[in-house]
């Protein structure tokens, strides 16, 4: 008994003829289990697509895959790819924004069944092409969907939709295009390496002590690398520029500790009178003024009150932590120990290196930045100073304790 099923849409008609194996079921619609003839007519195209089960299977697969491609914009391999070197029987391609080309290849392999022989009846040679508009394509998809939804026609075929996996999306770009950035990076690295190979190593120059003004020159400047913008350059500024305003940045005028003398030849000499406050400001100005710190500590009264020390330590700790976080990640691996002189208000008046690593990695600590700047300040009398031991640990922990240990009268 031949059964015919029709799925009709305004622009597309899918007709499936077949046989039912289930002869017992005579009531209602017996299921089609063997397809003998398939016909697909598209409005505006005279010649229908004729074929058997192969055409039907290929058609629904390609149409379904192409619909997914149309919705997502990512090429679906089942809609156009060749299968084992042989092009799929039905393929769909986009040829314009609103046009889709359906190509039906003639059968290549030898037909074995009666239904396959009918494929040769396709009047087109070598391949049939139909250009579908988006609406026509949709009607074809809809016909296919209605066929899938019909459980009484080829129940073993059902709509199977799965999203494409990542590798298909990645395959959109040709491999040459994807390899280009990597190749470009690698070749520029090579070129840079070759170019830099012929460049001479920069000479390792240590900072020279400035002899123009021996009075202001830091005695330690030659032994320790001083950071830019610290004592040595500013001293030279004073020596070169004979203006009182500049010299006041180093030596506060109200304290008038230094006598400024302009010689007839135009050279400027600044000499400190030697009052304790001058010593203080000089120690402050110098980043590596360890000897000045000693002087400072010998002249200024030391804070030994444990309560005051505690509050100073707390203030200093938060200050240093803030400064330290702003620094780039540290590279030192040993503890950096500093002897730090701190004013009662938490200002760092000066510091001294307590170990070698502390000297090497001083730029990685915030001490230089947080050093109290004497400019504009008017230290009238030696302020009391607390002596603290500050240890920067490589694991990012800061330890601060009184230099002389806890004082005897502390609880």
């Amino acid at each position, binding site marked *: 008994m031949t059964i015919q099923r029709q799925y009709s849409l305004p622009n597309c008609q899918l007709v499936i003829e077949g046989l039912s194996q289930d002869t017992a079921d005579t009531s209602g619609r017996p299921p089609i289990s063997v397809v003998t003839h398939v016909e697909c007519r598209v409005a505006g195209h005279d010649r229908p697509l004729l074929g058997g089960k192969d055409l039907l299977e290929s058609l629904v697969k390609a149409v379904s895959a192409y*619909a*997914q*491609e*149309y*919705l*997502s914009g*990512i090429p*679906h391999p089942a809609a156009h790819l060749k299968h084992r070197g042989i092009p799929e029987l039905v393929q769909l391609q986009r040829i314009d*924004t*609103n046009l889709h080309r359906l190509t039906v290849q003639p059968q290549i392999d030898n037909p074995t069944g009666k239904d396959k022989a009918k494929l040769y009846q396709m009047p087109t040679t070598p391949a049939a092409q139909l250009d579908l*508009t*988006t*609406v026509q394509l*949709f009607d074809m*998809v*809809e016909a296919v*969907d*209605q066929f*899938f*939804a019909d459980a009484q026609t080829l129940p073993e075929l059902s*709509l199977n*939709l*799965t*999203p*494409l*996996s*990542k590798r*298909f*999306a*990645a395959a959109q770009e040709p491999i040459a295009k994807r390899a280009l950035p990597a190749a470009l990076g690698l070749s520029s690295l090579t070129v840079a390496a070759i170019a830099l190979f012929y460049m001479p190593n920069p000479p390792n120059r240590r900072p020279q002590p400035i002899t123009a003004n021996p009075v202001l020159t830091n005695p330690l400047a030659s032994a320790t690398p001083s950071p830019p913008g610290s004592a040595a350059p500013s001293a030279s500024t004073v020596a070169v520029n004979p203006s009182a305003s500049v010299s006041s940045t180093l030596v506060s005028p109200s304290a008038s500790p230094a006598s400024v003398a302009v010689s007839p030849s135009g050279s400027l000499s600044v000499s400190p009178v030697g009052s304790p406050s001058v010593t203080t400001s000089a120690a402050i100005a110098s980043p590596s003024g360890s000897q000045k710190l000693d002087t400072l500590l010998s002249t200024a009264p030391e804070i030994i009150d444990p309560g005051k020390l505690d509050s100073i330590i707390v203030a200093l700790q938060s200050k240093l932590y803030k400064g330290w976080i702003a620094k780039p990640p540290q590279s030192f691996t040993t503890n950096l120990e500093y002897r730090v002189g701190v004013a009662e208000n938490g200002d760092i008046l000066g510091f001294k290196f307590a170990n070698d690593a502390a000297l090497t990695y001083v730029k990685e600590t915030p001490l230089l930045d947080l050093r109290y700047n004497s400019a504009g300040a008017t230290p009238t009398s030696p302020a009391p100073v607390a002596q603290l031991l500050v240890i920067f640990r490589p694991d990012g922990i800061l330890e601060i304790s009184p230099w002389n240990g806890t004082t005897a009268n502390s609880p």
Partner: protein
Amino acid sequence: MQLSRPPIQPIAPVFLDALPNPLLPEAVCPRRTRQQLDLMLLAIEALDLGGAEAMLAAAKELDLQSVIKNRVSFWRLRATNPLRRYSQRRPLTLTEAKALVFMTCHLARRMTVLIRQMLLVYDQLLEKQLPLDQHIRLGNYLERFRAHFRSRMNPKRTAVIAYNSDEKLNQLAMSLLGQLLFCTGAAGAQRFWSSLFDGEAS
């Protein structure tokens, strides 16, 4: 004041399970999915003047209120589109995406006739090489879509800059219209859902 955890989330409607969960590295919607869902809804808004209200009504009709509670939560779902001016940095869950898919298909199905008609007109205008705003309804749709797109998308995004001319936005609007047509079909929701994860599934 510490707020206690909200009560147990209302259970999402069972029919959302008709759409299978795709195999994704994470159980949230990828970028393209969020973008596409919002753009499709934008196209519906451009098609229908009362589109935004219709969407909220559709949420009620489809019994999606456990997922789309109100106007604000609906906006928050749509604003997961990374191209939005006020893009939300929250993820879009698969359940929420399914609700948006059903809503899109429901609204598109109602406008099937209009969508078909406009696509046919588009074909004819292209064939005769006439400007697209020759047809009043199509012209209105394109104009509204462009206005919606420009007012809501972040002009600093590269993907938005790509649509810097009327022609490019028209093209986007027409391709969205075609995609809406495919949502109206019998298996529209399944097809649309599956296409949303093309190239994302593992």
